[in-house]
């Protein structure tokens, strides 16, 4: 299951970060997300390593840490989406699909005239949409 999702601005500042655990590790998840930015930089800065998925918005698995898998997504506007999950085997298709829907939600959120570009996303609607997307994670393509 997804334990944390985050939107990170092009200056690596958090625009939105939401964890979905009853466990008391929200702060730890924030750390994980923050650290994963190092991997994103690595991927983007020397794409030869990341091979075929050059310029693809979906960055794939960023890095495995104990009990977590961290996935990344980088939009054309240099905004990063980070997904932290506890599932051991995750279908790439699911993650891609998740990010696609997440991206759509994000775009609507930043279309709010009162949203200041590069600033935190405080929209409640966005939060709600995100949590529904998170809940439906995995089912969409599985069946």
């Amino acid at each position, binding site marked *: 299951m997804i334990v944390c999702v985050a939107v990170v601005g092009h200056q690596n*500042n958090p625009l939105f970060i939401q964890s979905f655990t009853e466990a008391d590790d929200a702060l*730890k998840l924030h750390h994980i997300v*923050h*650290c994963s930015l*190092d991997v994103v930089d690595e991927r983007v800065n020397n794409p030869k390593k990341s091979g075929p998925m050059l310029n693809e918005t979906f960055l*794939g*698995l960023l890095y495995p840490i104990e009990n977590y898998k961290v996935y990344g997504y980088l939009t054309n506007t240099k905004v990063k989406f980070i997904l932290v999950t506890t599932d051991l085997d995750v279908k790439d298709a699911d993650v891609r699909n998740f990010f696609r829907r997440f991206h759509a939600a994000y775009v609507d959120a930043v279309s709010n005239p009162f949203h200041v570009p590069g600033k935190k996303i405080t929209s409640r609607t966005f939060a709600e949409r995100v949590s529904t997307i998170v809940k439906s994670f995995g089912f969409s393509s599985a069946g």
Partner: protein
Amino acid sequence: MEEYPEELRTPPVTLASLVGCPELHSLISTHFMSAQPPINTLALPDVSKIIYLFNNKTDSDPTPTAPSPLVPGIFKRDWLLKHRTKLPAILAALFPSHHLTGDPAQWQQLCSDLDSIKAVIRGRNIKFAVVVVVNDNVDEISEDRMIALRKRAEVDAKYVIVLNPNDAANLKLSLHRMASTFSELAVAYYREEGRRVKQRIEKKNVNSVELIVRYCFKVAVYAEFRSDWPEALKFYEEAYHTLREIVGVTTRLPAVQRLVEIKTIAEQLHFKISTLLLHSGKVTEAVAWFRQHKNAYKRLVGAPEGTFLHWEWMSRQFLVFGELLETSSKTTQGFAPIILSTSSKPLCEWEYYPAYYYQLAAHYLSEKRSVLELAISMSETNNEIDSVVDSVVPSVYVGQFARLLEQGDNVDMLPLTDEEYICYAVSEGKRFRDSLEIIALLKKAYESYSSIKIMRMSSFCGFQMAKEYFAEGDIGNAKQILDTIASLYRKEGWVTLLWDVLGYLRECSRKVGAIKDFVEYSLEMAALPISSDTGVRRDIGLAGPANLLQREIVHNEVFELVNGDSGLATNERINNLKITEGESLQLEVDLVSPLRLVMLASVSFHEQTVKPGASTLITISLLSRLPLTVDIDGLEIQFNQSNCNFLITNGQKSQLVEVSDGIQQHRTEIAPSLSLQSNKWLRLTYDVQTDKSGKLECLSVIAKIGSHLSICCRAESPASLDSLPLWTLGDFVQTVPIKDPILVLSGQKSTQVEEPDPLVDLHLGASGPALVGEVFLVPVTLVSKGHDVYSGELKINLVDVKGGGLFSPRDNEPHAMDSHHVQLLGISGPEGEDDSQLDSDKIKKIQQSFGLISVPIIKNGDSWSCKLEIKWHRPKPIMLYVSLGYSPYSDELNTQTVHVHKNLQIEGHNAIVLYHQYLMPFRQDPLLLSKNKKASESDHSESLPLNQKNVLVVSAKNCTELPLRLKSMSIEVEDNAERTCSIQHGSEELANPALLVPGEEFKKVFSVSSNKNKSKLSLGTVCLRWRRDLGVEEQCATTSTLSWVVTKQKLPNVNLELPPLIVSFECPPYAVVGDPFTYYIRISNQTQLLQEIKYSLGDAQSFVLSGYHNDTIYVLPKSEHILSYKLVPLVSGMQQLPKFSMTSVRYSAAYQPSNSSNSVFIFPSKPHFKATVSTNSRVESVVNL
């Protein structure tokens, strides 16, 4: 890695044993060590010792004899060591040669030794070699002896080696042969051993898996002995996989210890495998292998009471692999991790970084610690077990422990129950300070990450490290790390993380009682833009949950502290933080300070420039992001001109705020209210006024809060306000510091105060155009009207009006001084005040087009003047800029200067134009061939006839509008140039300077003659001395006082040529009507050649003439032909003589004499002359000729 036994960490080395000839052992062993592959030697002085070497082994190896159905353990602890140190692959017997050759007794001895050796090594196929040590020449060992020896020793010929330590030449060679032979033997030995064990595996009758594991291990080790890495790898892996099967199957040991043993074995095998992989450069494989190793055992936690063992083990796995990776990456640097995106579980960059493993090692170690602490707290056990614990020792088998039981002198090992074992392990665990180990690991990770610029990861490790330090009470280290981390989180605006870090920092400063830090950290926390709950509820650090409420709590706490409220005394958390009375706390907030969130001051003047003394409006806007409203007691506004500083006090606060010293005399405004609401600009507009010119800038705004705290904000301009930290307020519409739309965009914290209007007049009294060459004087007069002039300074600048610049290196000038077209020569002080005195105390700088001179103090109403001396070298207009800077006040403090500027355009004209012309002698015309060519040729330089007297007329024209005085005109020849001609003329000086009215010409005649045979003639430079006519005072002005301007102009060179023919006419100076005279035409041939001349004489109606009209004559070389005509004038007046023309056939040059020379005046009747003396200068100079 260090805790592994040495034999495990390093690859095994062949072991050879030497017997006899101890004196040679060291020599041989050292050579063997350095041999390739190296060989360890086990030296025995003589044969007798062999027994001790091997007999202990015989009883301690049951495995080949009775394979017991239930194996007590997997690996023998000492097996590997034994094979590396005790059990040689080869045994070499050394015999001195004389034992072979010497008397039978020695031979017998030798044979017996051989027999005993063979007896010992029989059964175990240790290889045997014989070394014969020769001391002198070899050949005296007879062949049959050697054969006998070989027979006795039952060794192949090539295993009998002859060694001669004395002959240095062959020693090395033979030692080398020895080494290679030995290693060959060793390889054979280990191969056979390996094959033997392998057979056991292959025939499936091995009933216990443990044994298979053991055998595989042995095979692998033997393979390593002969450095057959692939095989070694293969069998280690096999052993590893087989071992994994045992888990759960075997019941040999109690559950916990069983697992411990298996894990220990797995650890060793894994270590071997990854080492081999890494050494063969298969990094990716190694990483993949580690991953599967980790996954295979991660879940094998085992019995709950033994959990900590598992975590410890895991931690060690990561640590060791990390170290291996690090060392190998040192050796094989720059491996490029390629992500196998094809495989389902691609490796990612991170798994190639050692830091990643250290980090996780630390993670597991802390897991272990927490579990262990739990275990310790629970294990308050009966002391009989404790007594057991003391006697626990590692058992014979790897990964097993037993308790040592001594009864009298015999010792035996009893197996442990799990309970006992756990107690033992716990008590062992107590002995280590895990936190130090954890810190060490995190430090490795921290440094390793930051060394490859992976800052966030390293910060994360650093943070955990800092927490450990904090727990350990090492505040210094903790704070130092935390500060660096905090800056990263600030930069990237990770508020929740920052919040947490600040929480720790805050506690650090609390612990060490650093009150300023405490306040700063607290304020920053309180100001962090955390509005909605960030979802961080539990696992909150020392900071408490990150939410608005907590911010307010922090806010209140810190303000209670700084206000010194008594309520705090009860609060024990803060007891070591106290502000004593009178102690004050000033926080600095500049552009980079994190406290910029807490309070931000934007200041904007309403005008860009102000008149001195006039007042202008200034708006001070304060913004605070603290969660609660802050009541400011007073604001202190500071400017670079301290006399403008002022104070704004809070009208609501009755008590007066004490102001920092030196402000009292400044004015104090009272604001109705100074409460700074959260995220709302507090805007205050006041007027400031200064009479000091220059920049007026607001430096800082100091907010006084309570009796102790004051926050000093660096003033910022609204125009440059956008550089706020990037996380500031998400959910607010941004507001601007000033309502005024223009000031928001362009408002500046500084304004320009103009200087007061000057009250001094500056006159430039220049008259008319300047003349090139003369020193032109521009009088400058300062008249003070209302201002005294102190430390005044005149700046003078000459600027080309056309902007071409006065300096022109392009046209190369003969005189360096002319490189400036117009030049400021000097500044002469006013009359009476002479330069020397002026120089002494005042500045006076003069450059080509720039001048600086200091002006003495001028009291109000006084005046001062000086003269600028400017010289033109070219006729061009220039702009003269003169500016006076002075201070109206005498005191040094008030150094504000007032400036007066004046400028004046001055034309520069040429005073005099010189030109010249040449004349022939009267009525004489040389035939200059070049003249005829002129038309065709472009050479326009004049030509003169050689060795003839020529006349040069130089005329100077006054082309100004004013009269000039002429002193002299002369022709000077450059000293260096040798004189090529003689120039005579009258006296240099004119008796009294000639007046030259505008437009008038002055002519002077020179006679030039050259006899030297030169084609070119350089005449020199016309040099004219003149000056302006002073009109009235001309008389009184004596030549001494007045300087004369010298104008020079070089005369162009002239060609000289020898005229072949010269025609000269002769006739009386005048004639009278009616009476005849003779008119001679003399044609002289200057050449060595006969000249044929055709000539003709035209008719003239005013004369009657006799003689040939035209004819051809021949003039002999160097001689002349004279034509003579009788003429009778018919008409009076100036009459043209008959026109003569001739042609030189040789030169085909037609030729007419100039008309001027052949006219004559005819009187009607005979005149009567009276000689008179002319005073006319022109006539005079003609007469001079």
